[in-house]
């Protein structure tokens, strides 16, 4: 077993009105770990505690083997932090700013300058770095925010919603950069997001919290493997003008869990049924039911579960219908973006 970079033990944080974290116990191993949860789930609160800046009400945690309650200052020397909000003064250049932040991390002036040049290059900021940051795009600002978290070569970085406010392209670039922070720089990453789907590709592990409680923690591979799911498509007949719906009721009656994969507008989605294949007999049940109803079986294939489906049960279907289940991003979706956005069977997977 690898040693945990972060070990959280029965951690509780109570504010006067809310319990932000509720007996959270989870270990985080080296690599890229996604911390996922809806707004208010307690992600930022957890980061504050891990940096030793906010005392836990009960329980505790260690970061890189150091106790958050007693060794905050030592932890912060070896950990980088990227806040979710804007944090850049507009009238200074990225270079000046990151050099200053490097010195605040304890780097001597010469090293601070060298590492600033290196780090800004690694995050993809070139000539712009000498210009005042007030004129930067959101993508550039996010890169500077990441650079200041990396400049002192930490062992671990805590990134709070780094893709927030970025357009789809910027989001992908940021996620690729985060992946490189681990693969190329050898720095472990804890990255938070309220979007489950985007962390699937980036993270080795995903921790899902909800209302301060641990919902699930496992490797991304486990997440997507867990319950295999069958995609079934049938034809309509005269007796069953809506073959899909007829099959769905029949399967549910037979004790299987079957539902339309959401995304009403997606091509072909109306004819598709997702059935949880709990064991081998599910195949037989589906085949028999289709025959009994006299429907034509167009296809039956195994599909990976998306980690987003962890939330299917408690999320309103209304929000999932938007944009055909594609990842929401950009200015138009900014408001919807604030919500946890499950991405059920998108058109791309079905076709």
């Amino acid at each position, binding site marked *: 077993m690898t040693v945990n970079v972060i070990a959280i033990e029965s951690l509780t944080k109570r504010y006067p009105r809310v319990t932000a974290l509720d007996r959270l116990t989870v270990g985080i191993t080296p690599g890229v770990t996604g911390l996922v949860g809806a707004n208010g789930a307690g992600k*930022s609160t957890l*980061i*504050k505690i891990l*940096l030793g*800046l*906010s005392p836990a009400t009960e329980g505790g945690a260690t970061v890189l083997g150091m106790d958050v309650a007693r060794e905050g*200052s*030592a932890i*912060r*020397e070896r*950990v*980088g*932090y990227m*806040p979710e*909000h*804007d*944090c*850049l*003064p*507009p*009238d*200074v250049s990225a270079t*000046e700013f990151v050099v*200053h*932040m490097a*010195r*605040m*991390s*304890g*780097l*001597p002036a010469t*090293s601070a300058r060298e*590492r600033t040049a*290196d780090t800004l*290059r*690694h995050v993809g900021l070139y000539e712009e770095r000498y210009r*005042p940051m007030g004129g930067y795009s959101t993508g550039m600002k996010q890169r500077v925010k990441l650079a*200041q978290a990396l400049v*002192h*070569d930490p062992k671990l970085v805590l990134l709070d919603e780094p893709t927030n406010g970025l357009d789809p392209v910027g989001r992908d670039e940021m996620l690729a950069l985060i992946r*490189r922070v681990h*693969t*190329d*720089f*050898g720095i472990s990453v804890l990255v938070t997001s309220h979007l489950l789907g985007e962390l699937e590709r980036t993270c080795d592990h995903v921790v899902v919290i909800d209302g301060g409680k641990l919902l699930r923690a496992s490797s991304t591979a486990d997440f997507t493997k867990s319950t295999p799911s069958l995609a079934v498509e049938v034809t309509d007949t005269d007796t069953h003008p809506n073959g899909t719906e007829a099959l769905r009721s029949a399967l549910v009656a037979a004790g299987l869990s079957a539902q339309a994969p959401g995304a009403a507008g997606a091509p072909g989605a109306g004819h598709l049924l997702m059935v949880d294949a709990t064991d081998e007999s599910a195949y037989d049940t589906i085949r028999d039911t289709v025959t009994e109803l006299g429907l034509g079986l167009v296809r039956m294939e195994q599909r990976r579960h998306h980690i987003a489906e962890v939330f299917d049960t408690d999320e309103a279907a209304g929000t999932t219908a938007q944009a055909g289940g594609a990842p929401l991003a950009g200015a138009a979706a900014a408001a919807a973006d604030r919500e946890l956005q499950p991405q059920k069977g998108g058109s791309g997977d079905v076709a």
Partner: protein
Amino acid sequence: MSPEPHPTTSMSKTAPPAPPGQRGEDVIHNIGYRNYDGPRLGRGYARTSLFDQSLRGAYGLGRSAKSKVLPMILFAVMCVPAAIVVAVAIFTEAKQMPVDYNSYVLRMQPVIGIYIAAMAPQAVSLDLRFRVVPLYFSRPIERSDYVGAKYAALSAAIFIFTAASVVILYVGALLAKLDFGDQTKGFALGLACCAIFSLLHAGIGLAVAAATPRRGFGVAAIIAVLTIPYMLVGTVQGIAFSQDNTKIIGWLGLGSPGTLVDGLQSKFLDGQSDFPSGQALTSMQASLYVLLIVVLIAGTYGLLLRRYRKAGL
């Protein structure tokens, strides 16, 4: 997938192979990540660096050319009259300086006030307004380091601002061949007066600035806090004097930061107060002056600490 050997990647932990299609740029851009094995100098160093940066910032150094204009003009306005006083004293072969060290500084309060009003917000409210503060606190330094460094930096900036003209007066006095012993003693006490003035005013300026993150408000609020009570106290003292109520004049001086320093220096630093009666403070009054100055310095520092407890991430 064998990484290409590259001279500059020898230090790197992992040298990623260049993605296909980027070969040409590889030489320039794709130097592998280098780990940092050098010293990490910790809290004390970070605090000193922050002091350094803030002090330089108070004179626009390390900032845009535009930021240098106001502090430099004000600095000149502060020093030029001192230079003129000196020139006159030398030219007329005066037997004593027309103005003593402490009085010069205290009479220049309007200029100092503008300087503080411009620089205190710059020192703290930018970090608050643009939410840079959490980035400081995510590093080894603690709240007290940040507040201490900012307080010390603005105090030092005001001290330089005020002490420069005291130095000019002193050098002038020596050039005019005035008594060396007398002048050196006056000079030393003058510097002490500047130090107390700076500590007190830096605290007030920062506390007001931190409470008003909008820069424009901060400037106005500091000017108001420094000048309105000062003028009120002066006016009421004048009225008291015209009604022959001289006893109350010393008590009234407790009412503004400027008159506090004035009263204090007249009692302990061998100066002459600007109070209408010219009467010395009673020892009871003097101890209250000292107490109030200490309370104000400690109080503004405490207020700042509290302000940053909320400003953490």
